[in-house]
């Protein structure tokens, strides 16, 4: 099935600005689902609020566009109630890591079989360019007009520390890597986290004097490297890409099946 068959063409054109990286993430996710041969009715895509969250409406799955930061909570309800669904949760950096931070760490801890995709453009786009917990120090934003003094989260380390059993990072420059990582993340039996660095030329670019989309894409190329590469050894400031964590741990829905087994043996009082 061609990738465009996974799209709701009726709802195009999309709302994203020219040069936005979110379309590349969408393409990468759909290609992964297509290559895995998953039936459309077996996928639920659940998102929160923000530019990135609009991604779900454009896809022809069971789609749930929820509240700011709460996508993983809604998704947990969907998945736990119907474990046969493949649940994919695209979120923005503010959505997932600020207002949704608590839900994020607990979803990691719970190890429920879903895939969280953090589309990290280091800014709140929909509200017009405020700094996020992934912006980092020295960044300019409408709410950091004299430069940002907030330290950033490292999504990979946060997810690892919180107990996620699959953690990966890539960028929209590495489009085919999005697909290959997403395939593994979706197939992983447990909570998987995929951070995708993406660009917001409209706000992040403009506020930080980066001239164009190609410059931002170029930044992903020159400032990232494969995990454990020689380049990383030579230049420790490079951001690593690849799969950081891939371990097996009892999955939540499976664990609850055991609870049902134990409980149903007990007679009703």
């Amino acid at each position, binding site marked *: 099935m061609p990738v465009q068959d996974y799209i709701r063409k009726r709802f195009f054109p999309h709302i994203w600005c020219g040069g936005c990286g979110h379309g590349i993430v969408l393409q990468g996710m759909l290609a992964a689902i297509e290559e895995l041969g998953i039936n459309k009715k*077996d996928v639920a895509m659940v998102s929160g609020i923000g530019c990135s969250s609009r991604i779900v409406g454009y896809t022809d799955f069971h789609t749930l566009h929820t509240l700011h930061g709460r996508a993983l*909570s*809604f998704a947990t*309800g*969907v998945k736990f109630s119907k474990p046969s669904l493949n649940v994919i949760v695209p979120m923005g950096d503010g959505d997932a890591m600020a207002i949704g931070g608590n839900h994020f760490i607990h979803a990691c801890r719970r190890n429920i079989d879903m895939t969280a995709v953090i589309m990290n453009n280091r800014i709140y786009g929909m509200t017009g360019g405020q700094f996020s917990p992934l912006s980092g120090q020295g960044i300019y934003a409408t709410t950091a007009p004299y430069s940002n003094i907030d330290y950033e989260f490292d999504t990979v380390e946060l997810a690892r520390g919180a107990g996620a059993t699959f953690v990966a990072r890539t960028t929209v420059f590495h489009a085919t890597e999005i697909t290959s990582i997403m395939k593994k993340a979706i197939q992983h039996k447990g909570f998987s986290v995929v951070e995708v660095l993406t660009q917001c030329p409209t706000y992040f670019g403009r506020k930080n004097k980066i001239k164009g989309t190609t410059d931002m894409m170029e930044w992903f190329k020159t400032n990232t490297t494969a995990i454990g590469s020689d380049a990383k050894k030579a230049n420790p400031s490079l951001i690593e890409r690849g799969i950081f964590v891939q371990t097996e741990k009892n999955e939540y829905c499976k664990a609850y099946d055991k609870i049902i087994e134990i409980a149903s043996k007990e007679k009703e009082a």
Partner: protein
Amino acid sequence: MEGNIKFVQGNEACVEGALYAGCNFFAGYPITPSTEVAEGLASRLPKNGGKFIQMEDEIASMCAIIGASLTGAKTMTATSGPGFSLKQEALGYAIMAEIPCVIVNVQRGGPSTGNPTHVAQGDVMQAKWGTHGDHSIVAMTASNIQDVFEITIEAFNIAETFRTPVILLFDEIVGHMREKLVIPEKGKIPVIERLRTSVPPGTDYHPYFPRKDGRLPMSDFGGEHRYNVTGLFHDMWGFPTDKPELVHSLMRHLIDKIDTHPKHICKTKKHFLDDAETVLVSYGASARTALEVVNYSRARDRKVGLLELQTIWPFPKDVVAEYCDKAKRVVVVEMNMGQVMEQVKASVQCPANVFLCNRYDGTLINTDDVKNVLRVIEGRGF
């Protein structure tokens, strides 16, 4: 002996009612004085393949039951004051996206952390207006254990019939006191199942295109029909829109589907009202005290009656007007600063005849409190 007889707390009766109604998914977070609802369902749900999950917070619990409801489950969460505050945003989502679910609020003293282990009825207006924006909501309550069981079933039935969240506005006294509960055989009390679409696979299903009767047949996530659900104003596909005519018609639909069915939704109990010169209006634990005063007064040939509200929202203003307008005086008995009294005043022809008898110190309003107010307003001194 017909049915199954138990001696249980209100919170346990709520569990029994939920299970009778077919609840098969609960998400919650520990909070006094509602915790027994979660504890009961943690134990009972998995016995029949149902799902219980303790979430990381109150917000997540509310979101999880909405997500689960979309897969076809009958879902519930339970909380109290501070947790109810936290659930308001997602409650609004359930209203906007028209997701059936039940939210139990076993009321305690507030504002803030307030009086966690003591009774209050201060969340009446929050149940109506706690979430932002115009909307209609259904909130129900009960004053005894049997009624808690039955109103919980009714809450699920209304949630399914009208595709709406329903709030069960219990209170600490009703939640924790113990009484006899008779659980009837399955089928004795009607249980309404979800209305699912008959649109065949391969044919366009419009999740938000109401039928002539205003109802919206659903399709479970995971089923053949794939569609979008959003908290934004949306079109018949469930896709976001800000077109004024669509915003207008969706708002009209959300309000009308609740407010035009008062006979179906508004439940009251009438005690000695036919000839009542003094009408007490009360609900929840306060109604127990009010009923005691009615019985006391009737034994002394005083024409006092009680209109007990089981539906608080939409406010049963027609029934309130019918009985209160015939009376010489109306006394609203409640454990807050007059939240229902204001509604009663707004419903009757002569608001000056409506008095408040209240208590807000964390203890149950008692018969002397009510008798003292009656004495004064009936001109019998204090």
